[in-house]
Structures are given as C-alpha cells and as structure tokens.
C-alpha cells in the first residue's frame, strides 16, 4: 500500500473517531472540572432539581437554559443571574451556610413560572 493511502486512512479514522471523542475528552478535562455541576433550566424545571454540596465547598455551577430566558436565583446566597438560552453562565460561590435553600426562576417564563423551583442542600 502506498504511504499516502495509509496516511489518508489514518486521517479519516482521526476525523470520524478521534475528533468526536477528543471533543468529549476536552470538555470533561479542560473546560470543566470533576466538580462542575451542569444545570439545565427548562419550562418549568431545574435539572437537576436538587443540588447537594458540602459546607465549605467551592461550588461551581454551569447554568444554561434549553428553551427561553430564565433567571437563576438562590436568594439565600444572593445569587440572581439572567440565563439566556443555549448560553451557559458560570456561577461560583462558597457554600458557607448549611441548610436547604430554594432555587427559583427569576424571569417570568409563562404559566408554569411560579412552580419552577429547585433545592440547594448544603450539609
């Protein structure tokens, strides 16, 4: 087999197999840390609905919306961020107070808005 043909086969393999897997690997190891919690907001839920952390943790949330504009608010921690669809926002804070806190949507997002809540549990 000619050298360039072998190289071509390796390149196609790289594009079809290694490229997608490399992207996933990069995302997990370079753009995020193992502690990053990816939170999806949707009409009308928080996914995950319950976030559990330990007291003293440096909490690292990556919050995005999958449909319309929402607001990510944890009033007890003074957090209130505007979340645009498909545009994740990093929210970092130190979980210094223990307890169970309400996460709520702070931008009106149609009829189910007032039911859209979640829980932050700091133990």
């Amino acid at each position: 087999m000619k050298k360039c043909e072998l190289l071509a086969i390796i390149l196609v393999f790289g594009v079809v197999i290694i490229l997608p897997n490399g992207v996933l690997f990069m995302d997990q190891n370079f753009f995020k840390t193992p502690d990053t919690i990816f939170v999806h907001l949707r009409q009308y839920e928080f996914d995950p609905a319950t976030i559990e952390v330990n007291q003293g943790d440096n909490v690292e949330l990556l919050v995005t919306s999958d449909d319309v504009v929402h607001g990510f608010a944890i009033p007890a921690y003074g957090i209130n961020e505007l979340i645009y669809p498909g545009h994740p926002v990093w929210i970092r804070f130190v979980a210094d107070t223990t307890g169970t806190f309400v996460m709520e949507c702070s931008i009106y997002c149609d009829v189910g808005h007032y039911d859209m809540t979640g829980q932050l549990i700091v133990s």
Partner: protein
Amino acid sequence: MKTNARPFSSAQKVALCIVVFSVISIGALAFAPAVSAQGPTNREFVVVASQYAFDPNFINVNFGDNVTIRLRSADVAHGMYIDGYDINIKLFPESPSDEVVVTFVANRAGVFRYRCSITCGGYHPFMMGKLTVEPGYEFPISIVLAWGIAMGSIGVYWKGRFEPIEEPEPVEKIDLLKFKLIKKLLKSRNIQFTILLATLAIFVFVIMSGLVGTPVGNRNFSVVMVWIIWWGALMIFMVPIGGRLWCMVCPLPAMGEWAQRGSLTTKNEKPHGLMKKWPKKLDNIWLQNAGFLSMTIFIGIMMISSLATALLMLLLIVLPLALSFVFKDRVFCRYLCPVSGFIGLYANAGMLELRVKDRAVCKKHIESKDCIQGNENGYGCPWFEFPQNLDRNAYCGLCLECIKTCPKDNIALNFRLGGEDLEIDPWAGRKKRKLDEAWKAFIMLTLAFLYGITFMGPYSFLKDMARIASLNEWLSFIILVWGMALIVVPGIFVGFTAIAKRASGNKEITLKKLVINYANALVPLGLLAWIAFSVAIVMIQGSLLIPVIADPFGWGWDIFALVGNPFGLGIDYPWQPYFTTFVPFIQMAILLGGLFLAVRASYQIGLRVFKDRAQAVKGSIPIIVFMTLFTMVLLWHWTGG
C-alpha cells in the same frame, strides 16, 4: 378553430397583454403610501410579544412622528429590534405585567422589519412584524423599475423583430487549467482528498453538535452552520460563481465513493459492491424533486432543531453509503440528492463550466474513451456524463476525474459570464430536457417566495403551519407548499405559455416543448430570488456564527477567551444584524437584476425555439409579463408593506 375566425390578430393580443400588464403594475402603485397632510404627531403603540408573533404585526406611522412603543409579553422574555433604526429593546419580565418602553422620532421613511431580539424558543429567528414609515418610496420605485425593465426590453425586441437572426458571437471564456498551479492542484488526488477531509471534519462536528449539543438551535453549531452559513455560501457564492462547485467538495457521498473504490487517494482497478446500473426509467430528476419536496414539509422543524439537522445529515451520509454497495458510481448525487437537483439547475447559470476544449479532438480519438471507461490515472465519469457531449452544467458534478483521465489533455475548466446553458438547444444531443427539469424550476421559484413569506414575513399563521403547531396546521402547510409548487404556479406558467404559443402564431411547436424551454428562463429569476432571500438570512442572522464558534455545543466553552479575545469580543457575543438599512435596497437590486437576466433569457430561448424574431418577440411577451408580475410580488414582500 379556423384562423380567420379569431377575433384578435397576434399583434393585438400582444398589445392587450401589455395593456393588462401595465394596468396591474400601476394598480400595484395603489399600495404606495400617500403623504400625510397632518404634521408630526405623538403615536403610542402597545406591542404584545408572544411565541412567535408581535401583536400588532403591522405598525404604520408618518415621517416625523414621535413614536412610543410599549413592549409587553404574553409569555416569556422577548425583545424588539427595529431594522434601519438599529433600536433594540429587551424585556425580561419579572411579572406578566412588566413592560419596556422606547420613544423615537420616525426620521427614516420606508418599510422596516422589527424582530424579536432575545431567543424566545425555536421560531425566535422568524418572529417579526413590519413598521411602515410613510411615505416610503422604495417599493413604488422598484415597481416602476420592474415595469420599465419589462417594457424597455419588449420595446427593444419589438423594434428589431424583422431583422435576420445572426449566429451568436462566441462568449469570452478563461480556461482555468491554463494556469499551471490550478492544473496541478486539480490533477492531484491528494489535494482533493485533503479538501474533502476538511469538509468531512466540519460535518462530523455538525452531526456531533446536533446530537449532543444544546437543543437551542441558534446557539448550536449544526443549525447555524448548515442553515445560515452553508446555505448562504451556497446560494450567494458557490452556485452563481462556481456552479456545482459545492458538489466538488461535498463530503456526503465521499464515504460511499471511498467504499466502492476501495481507495481514498489512488486509482483502484477492482471496485467493491454489486455495481448495478441505475434503472433507465429513473434516469431523470423526478426522485430529486420528490426528495426535495419531502424535505420542504419538515423544513420548519429541521431549520430550528439541531437534532433534526443532525439526523438529516446522518441520513444523507448513510443513504449514499448504502447505495454504493448496490449501484455503480454516484447514483445518489445524480438521481436522489435533494439539493443536487436545484444546484444543477441553477449551475446552468453559473460562471464555471467543465467542457472539452475541442470536440473534433474527441471525435478523432476513437481507440478508447478514457473519460467514460477510466484509465490508470482515474475513474470513468461517475456522474454518467460523456464529457465530449457536455454542453450544460446540469449534471456535471465537477468531480475532476476527466481532467485526470483525458490522454489528449482536452478538458477545459472555463470561467465565463454564465447563462448560455439556458439558451442552447436542449433537444439536440443525447440527453433531452424534459418536464422533470421544468418542474424543478417551478418548485424552486415557488419556494423562493413561499419560504420568504413564511420565515421572513410578518404572518404568524404561516409560521404555525411550518413549525407543525398542530396536525391540521401541518396538513395545511403540505397542501400549501405542494399545491403551490406542483400545481398552482406551474399551472399559471403553463397558462402564460399557452398565451405565448397563440401570440407567436406558430402552430408546429407543441405546448409541452414551449413549457420545457421557457421554464429555463425562470432559472435566473429563481436563482436571484433565492440570493435575495439568502442575503437577508446572512445579514440578519450571520452574527450567530461568532458564539457557535466560541461554544459550538452550548457547553460553556469560550474558545476566543482561551486565545485572549483577539477580536475584542465580549463574553456575550450578542446577536447583531448587519446593514439593516441597506438590505432591502440590496435585495431590490438583486431581484431587478434577476428580472433583467430572465427577460433576456426568455427572448433568447424564444429566438432559438421559434427561429423567427417576430414570433420570438410575441411569444416571449407573455412569459416576460409572468416573470415581471412574480418579481413585483417578491419586491412587495421584501421592500413593501
């Protein structure tokens, strides 16, 4: 019917046709806004935004008015961007009664679209209304210009109707293979493979981002790349300038071709697969028409859904791969690919052509036909064309094999002004034009208008139909699209062609032949109508490319920040429409240019078919009238209220 019983002579019919046409044109000017007698007034509008409409969807004010807009929302966060004024207000309601207010002086006359400026769901990019600031003169002027182009051309042709028909002068062409570097690049299999590899990598990225990326379409690489960037590049640059240039670099059939050839970069003598021949009965583009029309009824979902886009791309890779095990060569591209059909049709007006340098050389070279049999340098034409007989671009996929195989170095890749493929006699040679191509032209012309008014118009009921809000709305959309594209528009065109046949006074030429031939005059009209559509898409939504390069999957990446924000962009990469003041003028120029080229093409086609100037003029007038009225409808949509 006896000829002497006819109440009108053909010249009288033509005159009648022109009078009716002129009355309709002037009637269109009734839409022209009148100058208001009253002075500047304060006007207040409560605009209620909802998914996916503004209420009201039309706002009319007078030049100089103080306009106040109170934007409220019926459901979620919305914004309002006003073209031309570059006003952008955003409403993030904390309760349903919140509103945001903007006041401005209407100091620009004309018709401006206002759009939602905050992603509010799938159909956010298409949510819009029209603001008319009277008196705007763009639309009336464009109508007069269209009428002028039609009447001026008819006048010129009419004046010369008794002159003899002389042979057309040969068109100046530049053979790109004259340049040694280009020739070297195009002869190299490795270079071709490298380009394919690059486009394949982009497609792998598209499929991956569609499958695992954010479901928000306009923040997902797949949707932005395919429906804005690829589509815009295809219609605005690749087809008009390069003809089937896209087919040269398209990665979709590459896997199938590599599998069949058993090789990526070399000529392999032993192909894999059953290598069956495509059935003769299907040697036309009806299947492409069917495939394209099947896509159109899901287009309202595919354009906004990253997942649907990825699945479509997967289908378009798997299908040619599967076919390559059964059929020989590029049957997918030639007979099935839904985009290949219109690329081929519009490539006839493109500026790049592959031809033989000298047919006499081919005719003398009878020992072998390397371009169809293949030789050690390359494969026989995978598009089932015979280069020696190529006289139009329709089915030459620019795969470059014949450049590699021709032992006589007789292949040319010409850069030309374009359009003459439409005028050559399609009834000569091996491959005849048939109704499949004519209907392709009708389908594309119809959709250039239907997609425009659905996705870039102020009518939310059309958007509800396209996005399959309910089964009934979807069925209505299917009936609307298929009915218009297959029956109504072709029916009207056939009607005008029947008038053309009678006006010409020629009895030998069948109506079918006339329809097939005159349908080619719709190619420049349709192509430029699509360019006008695509320019709007790219100018308005093109800035979405920046965030999807920074974060292709919506996973919180920021590639520009990694390299220190070289373009000075902020973290938000906001949506920003470009040149909204000029877009309608650019579109007007494109549409009028398309009309001019189409009028010219129809007369040239008439000359070729009738072989008589007087008949050609009379026969072309109804066609010109049809095309001008169609252009006026498009002008109304893009520049009028």
